[in-house]
């Protein structure tokens, strides 16, 4: 099993390296990207099954003692999120192959390999049991995503890329300082040892560390007031890139936020995190309401939804953490589908501005369905996955009697729905703007692959809804493992 863990990190990197030098031979790159992503998905599946029955898998890189070297840890939470993430990237890559060489597609020579570098960064971030390696993982993700964002060299991309990279580099700097603080006060950067030592520190020092990393990871996760890089940069990128970003990047931030703060027992920060969660939800959805463009609306939704995951974390109860984890799992495919549909709309209509499109429900009923189902899911309407995830969180909130956040979470659902209705009435109803006279596009064969990939992602999301019973059990177990850090410590150290 440990060999598989190693492969998961290294294979995407190697495939990326070959992809960079493959030159004009596009088929080599396609085989490499799809092959390695499919492989990663399969490995993630095997790991999940293994971890579920046998317990946490630990790989000591170079076989060094955890005091000195790096460990990769696959516990239940990691395996669960990993599987969803890998499958999502795979689907997006298929979509990208279909979309190749359009104005909205990314440069295929670069984007495939870069996506793989991004993948290895994401894998590393999920699996690492070491705070410094997490920093490296963030760097991998940041640099590959920045290049993906800007490599087409469009004006808006460069401009928003600047916001993106400047804020994230600043966060990286803060991360480095945080590493210094942690190492100086505990003598280690190993997460398991930190889980042991941080709770023993004096309260002020412990709170300081918790807050500092809340800022660092919070920037990555795009929580209020640190989210500003997201809505500026995401809508400008090519669809496939945005779809991966939307599904995954901020979620890596949330993931490590949950992992670090729960393992190191930062319960005292709960009220603060809940406050930030409420603000993130409201400000995010307000942003979505204010926009008039499909991609921009969807981008702001990401922020709003991050608020829900943060809410689960802020409760610091079993139900809350489990709710946050299943919300994460539900959110990744749903958000990705929505962005892919946004891409399909853009592909067909030549724009994603609401006032320039209309009447798509008549002309493209399939597209309407592909949009409607995940949109309802996002707004928390039953029987979709978003409803159960939201119910779990609200239930956890009621259990702990935190009324304000429960009220905000419910009211926020209505606002989410308003913005979804805005897209629906703007894009799928109405008659469209005839004066702009968008040319009827001749669809290339790749179009079928794009729609197919979107549909597969949607089906995956529906499957998550249908199998929410087992998923919830897994989420609860994963949360229990995190809350009781002894299991994690034992698995790594002994």
């Amino acid at each position, binding site marked *: 099993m440990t060999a598989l863990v190693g492969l998961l990190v290294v294979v995407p*990197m190697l495939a990326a390296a070959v992809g*960079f030098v493959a030159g004009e031979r596009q088929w080599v790159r396609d085989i490499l990207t799809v092959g390695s992503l499919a492989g990663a998905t399969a490995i993630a599946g095997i790991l999940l099954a293994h971890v579920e029955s046998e317990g946490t898998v630990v790989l000591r*890189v*170079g076989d060094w003692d955890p005091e*000195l*070297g790096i460990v990769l840890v696959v516990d239940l939470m990691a395996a669960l999120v990993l599987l969803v993430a890998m499958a999502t990237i795979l689907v997006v890559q298929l979509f990208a192959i279909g979309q190749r060489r359009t104005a909205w597609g990314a*440069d295929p020579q670069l984007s495939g390999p*870069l996506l793989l*570098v991004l993948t*290895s960064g994401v894998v590393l971030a999920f699996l690492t049991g070491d705070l410094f390696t997490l920093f*490296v993982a963030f*760097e*991998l993700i940041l*640099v590959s995503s*920045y*290049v993906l964002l*800007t*490599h*087409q*060299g469009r*004006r808006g991309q460069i401009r928003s890329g600047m916001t993106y990279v*400047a804020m994230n580099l600043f966060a990286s700097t*803060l991360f480095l*300082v945080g590493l210094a*603080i*942690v190492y*100086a*006060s*505990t*003598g280690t950067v190993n997460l398991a040892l930190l889980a042991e030592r941080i709770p023993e520190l*004096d309260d*002020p*020092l412990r709170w300081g560390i918790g807050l*500092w990393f809340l800022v660092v990871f919070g*920037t990555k996760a795009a929580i209020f*007031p*640190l989210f500003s890089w997201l*809505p500026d940069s995401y809508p400008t990128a090519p669809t496939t890139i945005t779809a991966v970003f939307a599904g995954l990047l901020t979620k890596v931030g949330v993931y490590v936020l949950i992992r670090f703060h729960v393992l190191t027992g930062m319960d005292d920060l709960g009220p603060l995190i809940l406050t930030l969660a409420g603000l993130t939800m409201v400000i995010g959805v307000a*942003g979505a*309401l*204010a*926009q008039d463009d499909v991609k921009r609306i969807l981008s702001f939704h990401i922020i709003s939804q991050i608020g829900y995951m943060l809410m689960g974390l802020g409760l610091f109860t079993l139900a809350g953490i489990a709710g946050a984890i299943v919300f994460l799992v539900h959110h990744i495919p749903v958000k990705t589908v929505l962005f892919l549909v946004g891409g399909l709309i853009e592909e067909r209509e030549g724009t994603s501005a609401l006032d320039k499109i209309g*009447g798509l*429900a*008549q002309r493209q009923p399939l597209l309407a369905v592909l949009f409607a189902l995940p949109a*309802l899911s996002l707004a928390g309407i*039953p029987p979709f996955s978003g409803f*159960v995830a939201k119910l779990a969180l*609200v239930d956890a909130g*009621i259990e702990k009697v935190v009324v304000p956040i429960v009220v905000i979470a*419910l009211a926020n*659902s*209505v606002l989410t729905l308003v913005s979804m*209705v805005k897209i629906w*009435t703007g894009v799928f109803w*109405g*008659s469209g703007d005839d004066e702009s006279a968008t040319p009827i596009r001749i669809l290339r064969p790749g179009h079928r692959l794009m729609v197919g990939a979107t549909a597969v992602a949607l089906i995956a999301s529906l499957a998550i809804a249908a199998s*929410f*019973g087992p998923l919830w*059990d897994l989420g609860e177990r994963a949360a229990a493992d995190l809350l009781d850090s002894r299991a994690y410590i034992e698995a790594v150290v002994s």
Partner: protein
Amino acid sequence: MSHLVGVVAVLSLPNPRPAFVVALAAPLVSAAWAASKLSGGEVDTARLDWVEGLDLAFSFRVGPLGALLAVLVSGIGVLIFVYGHGYFGGGDRRGFAATLLAFSGSMLGLVWADDVWTLFLFWEATSVTSFLLVGTKSTDSTAVTAARRALLVTVAGGLVLLAGLLVLVDVAGTATLSEMGPVTGDQATVAAVLVLVGAFTKSAQLPFHVWLPGAMAAPTPVSAYLHSATMVKAGIVLIGVMHPVLGAVDIWSGLGVTVGLLTMFWGAIGALRHADAKLVLAWGTVSQLGLMTAMMSLGSGKAIFAAVSLVVAHAVFKAALFMAVGEIDIRTGSRDLRSLSGLRASMPVAFWVMVFAGLSMAGVPPLLGFPAKEAAIEASLNESGASGDLILAGVTIGSVLTVAYTTRLVLALFSDKGGEPTEVAPFRWAAAAPSVLLSVLGVVGYVLAPSVTDWVVPAAATLETKSAGYALLRWPGLDSTAFWISMGIVAGGAIIGAAAARHSSPPETVGANNVDRLVDRTLDLAKWITGRVQHGSLPIYLVVMALAASLAVIPFLGSIDADQLHAWDRPLQAGMGTTVVAAAIAVAVIRSRIGAALALGVVGLGVSALFLIQGAPDLALTQLLVETVIVVGFVIGLGGLTTQFPANGFVWRSVRIGTAVLAGAAVTAALLASAENTPSNREALVAVAVDEGGGNNLVNVILTDLRALDTLGEVVVLVVAAMGVLALSRADTARGGGAPLSDDVRKGRR
């Protein structure tokens, strides 16, 4: 289940023509099945666990009430599909028929649910399908606005209901309806209010009624089915289903009856004001729903019995009335009471349907509406005390107005206005037959009142056992007070109605725009907030981040141990430190870009000197190299930019200086606080480095062996960064010269 198959079947039809015919098969099956359950007392249950950990399940229980409501939902559903076939005449209506069918299935799920979550699921499903159906004419902005309004009110109410159900499940200890016992207490009161508000939104009670008249923008089959006969009853059903659980809560009946009676009154006023026949019916529905809400939440045996009877009678006559108005609409192109003329002669079928169904609505024998209304009046008579008098007064006034608007509608619609009679399109069987059948059913229901009683009583008894002893009376007898009140109502109402029929005031909508205005306000507020938060200025974003980080440091201040601090280990450190600080200040102060870059180089050199003093020559060397490369890079990169930094205003400059100083102080404080406790693993590292790593240089061993993975990662980072630079420079030249792009970069930098 048969409905799901039906939806798929309709959508996959190759030929759009028979969409409605295929669609009606599903409700036909379920209506027949439910009818067979009407007399047999057997209870059917089905359960499918969904998320056991959260107690989520699909659970159904079909008892007498479920069967009765299912007969209404599916039976009227069948007629609606027939009617729809006639109403639309032609065109591709597969999507419409499928959505209508999906609604029908959701409604069945709602009335059969035996689990609060199942109930909620279908509750929301009816809201969503209703949205799609109201917006059928999706190019018409009125319809779209109305659809949005209906969805928002009902879904917002749905979420209030969700909150109520969560609280309720917490108190009751189970999510299964049939296992819930009566609950009381503070938490139960909260749940009761939330559940009632949810019910009010769906059943269009004050002040949430505003969405229902607007929903008349839907095609008439939808209005007849969803917005009069079935969906709007969901709230009433919910109140009924919750009666055994929450009925004992003090506020339950008081709130329900008050809101119900006020709605009954206000709805009737609305029906008297409007000149559009469909809107009259819609406001009439609001009013009738008010009466049902009042009866259902009143909660006595007789009242619940009356409520269930009213649900049945109302579904039958209101669907007939809508269908008739819809038929007039499609055959004349108008629904205006003031302009339609001579219809009595030209549309006799519609006329008689309206008369019979209208009499039933007014509560006149020999129609089913009469015994139902009688039951309601008797239930009010049974209430004692001042509140009882108020309820009786409310029901009586509401009923008088009901008779009035019914009379006005029929008289005005079919009167001769003088001049040419309105032109009428040819008769369509499919559009007329269902309404005829329903109006005849009103009579049959009266004649067979004992049989109807046999269906209604067990259904009502599942909600309130005391309902078991009552019956629908064809002829209550001359010594019945209720009968005389009833006759008074009819007489009074007829006079008012006849008078009102001559004076048609211009139509105006009251309150309907409030929801839209609320939505617009929300959107404006959202724009305002977003403008404040997402202003697009990178420097301000960074200031916010730096402030957040500085705030995070506050706890550290508490754990700095002042005794441990000393200024330097060696005097050289002080000198180098001062140099670094001075150079850093210079970076900020110098206006020339190249000068700032050089000052930055000095900072780097100073730091590497500090490393050297500390005894880390390797590190110092690396730092030196990096700094050199950076300075060289700056010098090359600055070529395309102006030589000076742009000037800043005093305030903004102060903010930036302040933030920088604060951030610096924060980092210093954080490091000071953490520096004291250092159980370092250096000893272990040194031992391992030599023995196992095979190198005397600890840093090298860490980089290449202990933390080789990190090194690999950073190498990849560098490669990717290089690729990015390459790609950008290519994109730059490919787009015909770098000038505009550099402009852009300059703006971005600012």
